[in-house]
């Protein structure tokens, strides 16, 4: 898929684990893992907003587009 999820890099930059983020945004670790590994089919705006709020970042820092 040409949409790349770069949540890992942002988490590392902010010094946060996936578990801490899942607790902070009230999303299951399983679902957050699906997002992180790029297996999600779609992302809700509310999820994106919560992640950006907690990580203090822009959506563009979490998602990137790469041509095939």
């Amino acid at each position, binding site marked *: 898929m040409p949409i790349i999820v770069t949540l890992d890099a942002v988490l590392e930059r902010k010094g946060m684990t996936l578990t801490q983020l899942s607790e902070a945004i009230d999303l299951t670790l399983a*679902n957050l893992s699906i997002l992180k590994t790029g*297996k*999600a*089919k*779609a*992302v*809700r705006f509310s999820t994106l907003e919560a992640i950006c709020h907690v990580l203090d970042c822009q959506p563009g820092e979490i998602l990137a587009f790469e041509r095939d």
Partner: protein
Amino acid sequence: MINRDNLVRSSALAVRVAAIANGAFVCALLLGLAASWLMADRLAALLPGDDLAEKVAGLRWMMALGLAMAGGAFVVLRALGGMVATVAAGDPFIAANTDRLHRIGWALLFLQLLDIPGYAIRWSFPALGSAGPDAGLSPGGWIAVLMVFVLARIFAAGTAMRDDLEGVV
């Protein structure tokens, strides 16, 4: 949640009981059909009158009609049992349930159409009198057929929506 669980459990039990009753009904009809040939003498004693042959023939056709009805009921109950099981498992919006609803719809249509041979038996064997099949038109049955086919379409749309939602984070 407890009420919903009870409802699912009660539905599963009701379907099982109905399936057993349907099976018993089939056994009784098969025994009745066999007896109509094997115990013709006793039947003659039970059904007094000059029109014995007509009565026996009418009864045989009625039992054959009953077997066809039991076949339709079997399809309905089997599909319904499968649907109740998916509700109990917590995942009813699956394509298999859409197929099951279609099968129920066709089986109900078949059961409704059995009114026609019912009329034919009543008309062909007047000696049966009030014992003949009650072949009255039932608008409720036809509405049920229509409703099940509409529900199958709704279910198909719901299943597609659920598939879309799967993988949404």
